[in-house]
């Protein structure tokens, strides 16, 4: 999956309205980011990559780039 496609799906899943977002965007800087957002990311990654992340793993993730690394760089182009 192209990185920009993933970022767009990420924005849709978390219903992010702000314009500026790239792979360096810190997750905790996203307006309204909370425990529900964590569950939404887990559901999104499961849906797109059939990979089940845990809340503990996501607690270590700083930004979208490190999320993609956690999912597996082989999944992105």
């Amino acid at each position, binding site marked *: 999956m192209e990185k920009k496609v993933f970022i767009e799906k990420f924005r849709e*899943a978390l219903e992010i309205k702000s314009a500026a977002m790239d792979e360096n965007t810190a997750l905790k800087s996203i307006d309204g980011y909370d425990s529900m957002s964590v569950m939404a990311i887990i559901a999104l990654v499961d849906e797109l990559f059939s990979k089940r992340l845990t*809340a503990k793993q996501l607690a270590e993730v700083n930004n979208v780039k490190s999320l993609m690394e956690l999912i597996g760089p082989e999944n992105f182009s």
Partner: protein
Amino acid sequence: MDSQFSLQGRNILISGASSGIGRCVAVFCSRAGANVLMLGRNEKTLSETLEMMEPARHALAVIDLNDFSSYADVIAPFIEKNGKIYGIVHSAGLEFSGPYNLTKPRNFQDIFNINAVAGFELSRIVASKFADNEAGGSYVFISSIRALFGVEFATAYSASKGAVIAASRSLALELAKKNIRVNTISPSLVLTPLLDKYFESLSEETIRSMKQQHPLGFGKPEDVANACIYLLSDASRWMTGNNIILDGGYSVR
């Protein structure tokens, strides 16, 4: 055990007996004297359940509950050996947590197939082909507190469990003339492998907060299994179309 709660010699079909609530129900049914037909996806874990049970004429069958057309063939050998089926406990379940904007028709269909339709199809086949018309019967569907109280990210799961309660009330009316009772149990959070999987998506703080919402703490499979024994036994002979809430006090506030 008090004779009113005995299942001596009764044949009980349990779906989802590989683990969690279904496994515990199978063990408790065997202790109450029943012969149990266990359905599940995994032969190894079904065999582990069998090893925990009091010996009787039990059987296990590996089945994909999405394959509705296979049900009659899977049940038939048990009937030939043990006779008609008295009770059903539909405990097989899928969990799906996701925001509504990621909850698609396929998610609803997958979860409805296992949580709701599979139980109704098992009931249809047993009631029409494999039920003892003289003895009657008792069918129990495991619903959920989520059918009654909303929570974020559980739209599909809640819908499937709500369907179980709604359909059971109508089914209870139809099957009453065969002296078959139909009831549901709505547990809140019960410590099972399914719950462990759900907890993995939550922070420790969220889990702590959920525990605080349950004055008696989270449930154990035994809590639900005891209610199943009651509903399967003659102790509940005047009860049909009802739903038992088991929630450690979650809903009393």
